[in-house]
């Protein structure tokens, strides 16, 4: 199973070395379950800075972040941001 993990803005620093721009592609064994919260944990992204969590562009509220990701999912995370 393949999941793309993207960190943006001030969270970019939590990406592993060698990450391409904002993203790393993560490989998981078949049947291995991984949730957004587990990835947040694994890359030591501070919880206080996890604000906008999108799976395939769709916002995932806090109570949905323990649902396992599926093959090909794109998980993107931002701290609180705004512009105009």
């Amino acid at each position, binding site marked *: 199973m393949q999941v793309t993990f993207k960190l*943006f*803005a*001030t969270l970019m620093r939590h990406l592993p070395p060698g990450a391409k721009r904002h993203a790393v592609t993560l490989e998981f064994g078949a049947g291995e379950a991984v949730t957004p919260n587990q990835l947040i944990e694994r890359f030591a992204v501070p919880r206080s800075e996890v604000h906008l969590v999108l799976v395939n*562009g769709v916002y995932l509220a806090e109570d949905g972040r323990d649902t396992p990701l599926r093959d090909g999912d794109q998980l993107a995370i931002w*701290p*609180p*941001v*705004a*512009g105009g």
Partner: protein
Amino acid sequence: MAWAKKLLRVNLAKGEVASEPLNMEWAGEYIGQRGLATRYLVAETDPKCDPLGADNKMIFATGPLTGTAVSTGGRYSVITKSPLTGAVACSNSGGFLGAELKSAGWDMIIFEGKSPKPVMLRIVNERAELVDAADLWGKSVWETDKLIHDKYQDAQIRIAAVGRAAESGCLYSAIINDLHRAAGRSGVGAVMASKNLKAVAVRGSRGVGGVKDPARFMKSVAEQKKVLAENPVTGKGLPALGTQVLMNVVNEIGALPANNMRDVQFDGASKISGEAMLEPRPGDGKPNLTTNAACFGCTIACGRISTIDKNHFSVENKPEYWGNSGGLEYEAAWAMGADTGVSDMDAITYTNFICNEDGMDPISFGATVAAAMELFELGAITTKQTGGVELKFGSAEALTWCADQVATGQGFGKELGLGSKRLCEKYGHPELSMTVKGQEFPAYDPRGIQGMGLTYATSNRGACHLRSYTVASEVLGIPEKTDPLVTDGKAGLVKAFQDATAAVDSLGICVFTTFAWTLDNIAPQVDAACDGEWSVDRLLEAGERIWNLERDYNMKAGISGADDKLPERLLKEAAKTGPAKGKVNGLEKMLPEYYKLRGWTKDGQLTDKVRKQFALPA
């Protein structure tokens, strides 16, 4: 007090200037800046007047908090009738000019009539004079700025000017102050140029005083600055990445209009994003961004100061563009990037410089180029019009060529300068113009962010995101997250944002504060500064009054509920990718509810009840 209680009336036809007291009764109802200046415009002009004729007036207006220590308190607005939309234009700018004007002792300047020859207005505190500007006509904003500084040998003079775009009739030309801050939208620059007014040069050293309760004000200001500092958006995200932080977000959620809004996502988004501005570029190893910069009094400092790679085709052999200047904001990067399919950051930064140098709204410019590109693709426009240039989506060369042409009013640039509505009409495809009331869309696709469809359709100045930025809620979760793909509840959201924003725009502060502040944070600062008592309710009431006054002006100008619409493309052509795939904008579901909340008739007319409630002028 906080108001200077004085306005400067400039009769350009007669070449006369006069001081008069500010109407404080109106100030109590309409606050200042956007609201109060609109009140003057309504009182003094015929809404049916020709925007570029002598009967239209143009008002530079500050708010009561402009020039004070309140964070972001340096704003001014230009209010006039727009030549692009025929509606009321109100363009808000930062930089330093607004505070300087206030420090010179003026709340507003009302320009009336048309000067027989090019002039500039020079203000040194209470002294104001019209000065011959024959030597400035035909010059860019940047040249004008330098010539004025050289002439008066005073680095502290703050200058607002129009460039060659405005002089040559570009209908989305802007007024640029402090070299790269803009009263950008709706063609206020064209109005200024139509009056033969080239520049306004201000030097103020009287200061801004008369705060009602200085001790309470300073305490409140300090507390609220802290709120901005501690908020992750205004304290961290905006200073670090600017508004450009949005490029990737909006692309990811599938609401980044691309290729004249045919698409809702753009492959090159990350190359022109805020994050990319920090990366060393291959050419010279330097990042696009040099530093962030603040407008007067602003403790957020979202402004970008950038350079272009000297070796880039747009600036090679043009050393005048090698230094630092105002860099990309999200809207500009989107319009000149995603919407034209261009992902060359240096090219977009160059066109951004040109927009500043000669005074053009980068949103309308980029969107008009995008429309022209689609017309070119259809063969409606050919190299015959462009003199050989291939106007293809994604072509950085085409983009920079267009910028140079519009900026200087040459050749096809004249047609591009009329905006996408007139361009598409002329070439037989009005449906390709992505505009509301003649003004081009900004950077949020209403198929992916439903509330923005209503925002655009009902905006009092044509398509605009800054009249009710529901993106904050629908995408960013400020103040609370709503679902961008549903229409339920959006009418109320839009109305609430519209009213609050109208109040904020009338105070002299920046709407970006509202990423961290609510009116609960703002009201105490207003109350400590201004005569009378200022509560959240009073601000909201004033905001709603202002909204209705603007609507009323537009109605009298001949705009009706039928103009509260979106281009067919957004209502019929479904989004092709991303979370909004298969969706169009549901304006028809939101609009009736919105009218009802406003207390208007079913076809969007103001009612007598509303007029009475807000004591609107007849």
